[in-house]
């Protein structure tokens, strides 16, 4: 049995760069005979049929339910009709036939593995050139239907997620006093239908901790907890939520969710894994947009087409950095294919993140599950194909294709001196390099193109072509130049953004089996057929772009789009409750999970739009609900009926996210730098073992000041090929692909890191020092302070006793000093389950 599997396209394996000339040369000598019908029939039976029999029919005729590539080789008509890659035969130009390419192993390899013999290939080619004679009497049983079954049927169009959300009625419930708002009615209705009752309300201590982490990614201080717990104001909780929603730390927490979805990374992957210039401005844009409660429709439009807006601003231009976040091979084996891989990466991200659909599955063939055709894919792709590729090989090309400066007029005049300085240092650097290059062998010139390799190549010449002093100066000058350049950039305001080739987009073609080298019909930009969309309204090109992306953006960010609001409302729910109402939050298609509360999702989506696509009212609504305020109290009986908690009979506990864990540790140690927001990314010190995995240890990992290193994790540099252990260990996603739901793994490497790493040892020491006078203060007090700070509650006497006992044991049995023992105790506290789990 053939087991089909999907592709992430791109992988049109072997053919990618294989010389395409193997067969045209053979055709040069091909003699096409002229045959009468009887001769043609005989040619089929004697020459062609044995080849089909031996090499083709097993996959393309024997099992009609499981035809390879859905291509039937059962009759002339079947071949002309073709399979999922389109018609197999081009009668007007036999050499252009897919079948001819396939048997020559060009783009597609058929039969897979061993090629047919030269003679067999010639026979089949002649057969096609003859017009594909296939006598009726020789036809095999073919698929019943004529042509491919229609994918985009009326039934498919009726799929629940493809309907514009309608505001549902609020269900009537028995225990209506429990409900604090509409959300609760939907949840309670579900519970009552199953004869269940919601868990009791969580304690105020649990609630404030939950709310703090959910909105800011940080814990409250013990003082804030005490104040809240003792606040007699019945609206204390509402006020707390409003205060947290107004906190600038809200954007720092929620930006991370969006960055997961858009696969935010600050480097390109592959051999050089170069740093993306000024990409952090996009991260800052996301934080600021969230803090401003920018309407989500506007947020999407700015990222997709901020440059095409009539009132484009620096902010909307920075937003288009969205297009520059993906991986980039600066040295692709097949540049054309790589260009379309990059477009595919964009469409995959847009489709899954904004529309909750895996449009990318239709790159090589029609979608296997969803009603999305290959044509749909290329129509959608056509909105992007005028985008200039991220770069061509060099860093300079990236600056040209993806960076623009927003400096004010007169900037150059004002900074003349600075620019001259930069040029002067540059000249000094180049002078040293010129000396060193004198005895370069060719391969070294090659290597020199990579800036990361230069120091090593120059250093090799110390004592020969240059002096040690010159080399030291060389290194210093490079540092100087970097600093001067940053100074200049602070005023020049270079941004990473989208650019197009110009107002006139190139034609977009369907690509057979996803290969950029085999073009099918031309397509125009268009939305997904199954959504019965309007024609794209392209206002016309701008001076520099086609205007297509704005048309796409307006359609995606429209209240008539059935998916956009639903998908986002579901995500907001997911990030508060641990799972979406649709658990597959980036897949609302046929294979996605069904919503556990479909009407609630309708309600949230319509409410989201009614609130002007603002997130904060939605957060508020969710968090003020009785549903959100439930405790995590266990009920074995309910767990037996509903182990996944589909019906929300309790609040699910959650482990802190990787960033929350790291930030909280720094906060406990009194080290978290919360004063500084935004700006260039920071580089925490990493152990040498981590750098040892690189081909140039420490390459592209800068040295940050301790103050900077201790900034929140959202500001930590995201390097595709070098992950910060504590973040990677706790499931910060690999940024190569969009991540809608993070893993929550538990593994021993986390424990090793949390006990033994230099980072933890250092933070535990700082934590201990900040508790008071480690020599003089009573042990019980020090222990109690540590526990109260980490757990944000007043510790129980037994817990304090336990702490005193272990500190004493360390001092008495192991002869540790009081400081050392208390440091170890702080380390222990940072490892408590209660510290890393939210109740």
């Amino acid at each position, binding site marked *: 049995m053939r087991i089909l599997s999907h592709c992430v396209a791109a992988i049109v394996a072997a053919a990618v760069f294989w010389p395409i000339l193997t067969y045209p040369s053979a055709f040069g000598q091909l003699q096409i005979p002229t045959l009468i019908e009887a001769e043609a029939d005989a040619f089929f039976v004697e020459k062609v049929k044995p080849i089909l029999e031996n090499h083709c029919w097993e996959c393309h005729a024997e099992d009609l339910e499981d035809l390879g590539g859905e291509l039937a080789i059962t009759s002339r008509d079947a071949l002309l009709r073709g399979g999922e890659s389109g018609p197999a035969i081009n009668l007007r130009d036999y050499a252009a036939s897919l079948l001819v390419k396939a048997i020559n192993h060009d783009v597609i390899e058929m039969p897979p593995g061993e090629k047919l013999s030269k003679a067999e290939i010639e026979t089949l080619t002649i057969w096609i050139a003859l017009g594909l004679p296939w006598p009726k009497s020789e036809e095999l049983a073919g698929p019943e239907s004529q042509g491919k079954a229609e994918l985009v049927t009326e039934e498919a169009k009726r799929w629940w997620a493809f309907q514009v959300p309608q505001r549902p009625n609020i269900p009537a419930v028995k225990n209506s006093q429990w409900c604090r708002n509409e959300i609760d009615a939907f949840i309670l209705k579900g519970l009552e239908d199953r004869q269940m009752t919601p868990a009791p309300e969580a304690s105020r201590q649990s609630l404030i901790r939950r709310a703090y982490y959910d909105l800011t990614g940080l814990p409250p201080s013990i003082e804030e907890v005490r104040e809240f717990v003792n606040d007699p104001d019945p609206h204390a909780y509402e006020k707390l939520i409003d205060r947290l929603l107004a906190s600038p730390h809200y954007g720092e927490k929620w930006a991370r969710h969006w960055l997961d979805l858009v696969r935010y990374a600050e480097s390109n992957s592959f051999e050089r894994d170069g740093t993306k210039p000024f990409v952090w401005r996009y991260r800052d844009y996301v934080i600021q947009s969230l803090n401003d409660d920018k309407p989500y429709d506007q947020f999407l439009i700015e990222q997709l087409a901020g440059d095409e807006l009539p009132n484009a601003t620096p902010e909307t231009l920075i937003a288009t950095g969205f297009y520059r976040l993906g991986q980039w091979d600066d040295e692709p084996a097949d540049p054309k294919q790589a260009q379309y891989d990059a477009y595919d990466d964009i469409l995959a991200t847009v489709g899954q993140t904004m529309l909750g659909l895996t449009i990318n599955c239709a790159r090589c063939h029609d979608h296997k599950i969803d009603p999305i055709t290959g044509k749909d894919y290329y129509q959608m792709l056509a909105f992007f194909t005028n985008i200039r590729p991220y770069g061509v090989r060099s860093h300079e090309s990236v600056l040209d294709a993806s960076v623009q400066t927003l400096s004010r007029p007169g900037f150059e005049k004002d900074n003349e001196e600075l620019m001259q300085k930069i040029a002067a240092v540059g000249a000094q650097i180049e002078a040293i390099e010129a000396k060193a290059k004198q005895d370069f062998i060719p391969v070294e010139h090659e290597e020199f193109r990579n800036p990361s390799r230069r120091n090593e190549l120059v250093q090799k010449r110390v004592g020969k072509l240059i002096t040690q002093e010159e080399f030291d100066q060389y290194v210093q000058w490079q540092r100087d130049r970097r600093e001067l350049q940053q100074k200049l950039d602070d005023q020049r305001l270079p941004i990473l953004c989208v650019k197009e080739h110009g107002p006139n987009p190139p034609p977009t073609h369907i690509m057979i089996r996803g290969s950029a080298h085999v073009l099918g019909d031309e397509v125009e930009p268009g939305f997904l057929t199954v959504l019965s969309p309007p024609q794209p309204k392209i206002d016309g090109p701008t001076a520099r772009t086609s205007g297509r992306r704005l048309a796409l953006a307006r359609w995606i960010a429209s209240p008539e789009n059935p998916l956009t609001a639903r998908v986002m409302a579901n995500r907001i729910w997911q990030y508060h409750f641990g799972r979406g109402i649709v658990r597959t939050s980036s897949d609302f298609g046929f294979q996605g999970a069904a919503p556990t509360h479909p009407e609630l999702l309708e309600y949230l989506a319509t409410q989201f739009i009614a609130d002007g696509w603002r997130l904060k009212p939605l957060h508020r609504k969710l968090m003020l609900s009785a549903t959100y305020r439930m405790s995590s109290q266990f009920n074995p009986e309910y767990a037996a009926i509903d182990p996944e908690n589909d019906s929300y009979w309790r609040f699910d506990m959650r482990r802190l996210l990787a960033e929350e864990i790291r930030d909280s540790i720094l906060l406990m140690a009194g080290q978290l730098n919360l004063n500084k927001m935004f700006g260039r990314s920071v580089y925490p010190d990493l152990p040498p073992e981590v750098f040892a995995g690189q081909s140039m240890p420490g390459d592209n990992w800068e040295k940050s000041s301790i103050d900077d290193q201790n900034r929140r994790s959202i500001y930590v540099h995201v390097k595709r090929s070098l992950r910060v252990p504590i973040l990677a260990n706790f499931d910060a996603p690999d940024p190569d692909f969009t991540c809608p739901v993070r893993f929550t793994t538990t*593994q021993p490497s986390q424990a090793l890191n949390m006990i033994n790493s230099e980072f933890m040892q250092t933070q535990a020491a700082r934590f201990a020092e900040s508790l008071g006078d480690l020599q003089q203060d009573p042990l019980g007090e020090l222990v109690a302070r540590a526990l109260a700070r980490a757990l944000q509650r007043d510790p129980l006497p037994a817990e304090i006793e336990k702490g005193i006992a272990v500190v004493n044991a360390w001092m008495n049995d192991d002869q540790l000093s009081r400081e050392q023992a208390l440091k170890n105790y702080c380390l222990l506290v940072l490892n408590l389950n209660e510290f890393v789990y939210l109740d």
Partner: protein
Amino acid sequence: MPRKVPNFCGRTRREFFWQSGAGFTGCALAGMLDAEFFAKFGQTSARPSDDEKWQNPLAPKQPHFPAKAKAVIFLYMYGGPSHIDTFDYKPTMYGMDNKTIEVKTFGRGGHKNQGRIVEPRWKFKQYGECGKWVSDLFPHLGTCVDDIAFIHSMTADSPIHGSAMLQMNSGRILSGSPCLGSWVNYGLGSENENLPGFVVMLDDKGGPISGPKNWSSGFMPAVYQGCVVRSEGTAILDLNRHATMTDSVQRKLLDTLRDYNDAHEALHPGNSELAARIASYELAYKMQSTAPEAVNLSQETEATQKMYGLDSPKTQYFGRQCLMARRLVERGVRFVQVYSGGAHNDDNWDAHGDLVFNHELHAGETDQPIAALLKDLKQRGMLDSTLVVWGGEFGRQPTAEYEKGTGRDHNAYGFTMWLAGGGIKGGVSHGKTDELGAAAVENKLHVKRIHATILHQLGLDPNRLSYFYGGLNQRLIGVEDVEPIREIIA
């Protein structure tokens, strides 16, 4: 007829939970559990026993069919060794040095149609009963040819290190997919929970380009990623107790931590993840003693150490890696990848400059240790169940890269890899390149055929081993079904 095959993208339960963020009850570890466990757990309010708490994602799993090999040692010749100077004998090239000929090549220097021949720089001799021709670079390995299946017709999609290495390691020329070792551990788990299931050992000259991307678990959870293990210094990142901490101090810390966590858990029943986290600290503690023992080569006899070349400065580093690889496999590690070559240029097999200097260096470092590994595995009866794979991301061109010198550019049109043990035939050679070694001409094999063969020998059907991600059933071998290389399977 639209054929909506329900299991087409059918996820396993585990993938479903991960994909859908099943929250606390369906946490990652619980995600590893099967339906029965879930039901059982859901119904019990009592605390599970210690055994049940640690549901190791790497717990051994049944293969699809009986396996020939239990473990893999992948000797990765980073940079791309020249096949015509090592195992792919091209007698007609001798005497053709410096002759300019028409030949299509594609390497770092782009597409070319002609070039200046660099005659193979070493003589070849016949070895073993099979009479295999092996170059003088590998006098020790020559004595093992009767246990080896050579594949001379390898091809890859890219002749550029970055993408080609990703393909050799993860099946794709793009970044972000799980590596072979991740797939193997995902499919089979590991035999020893106190050691990582996917171990990577680097050359002392440095890591390969793209660094950890070469052992990344991509879109799979981090538990399947490769773990770098060192023979000197810290064996595994963060494995060693901090300098200020003795065993007794750490033990007290862990015991008290457990006390606190137990009390916390008692107040929060029905949350399996809490128990799992408690258990994970005990496992980490066990790893602290198990892993250093596994890499402690002083337990080996002097004769063994000598056999691996630990007594010679040239071979001692790679020899240690090979000996460690055997010890790790002995202790149940599923997949070990050992890099020969690191960093850039002549620090690895990337012989763009001086071919002789480069290959003498790297072959000199590895020949004796690799031969020792094969013989040692054999004498211990482990070769039958250990699949040894040798090769780089591509081979090298028959012609010179530059006007002067012997440097060869990359060649993905044809190159050699070899396999030994783990149910692979010995003393055979499969596939051919043309008379210059410029391109595979007979039994052309793509990298994914090697991947399929490795999975197959481990009892995994390469066409069935899939992981649901991004709306797709992802497979290591890609979209089209792929056959293992049956001709070399015993």
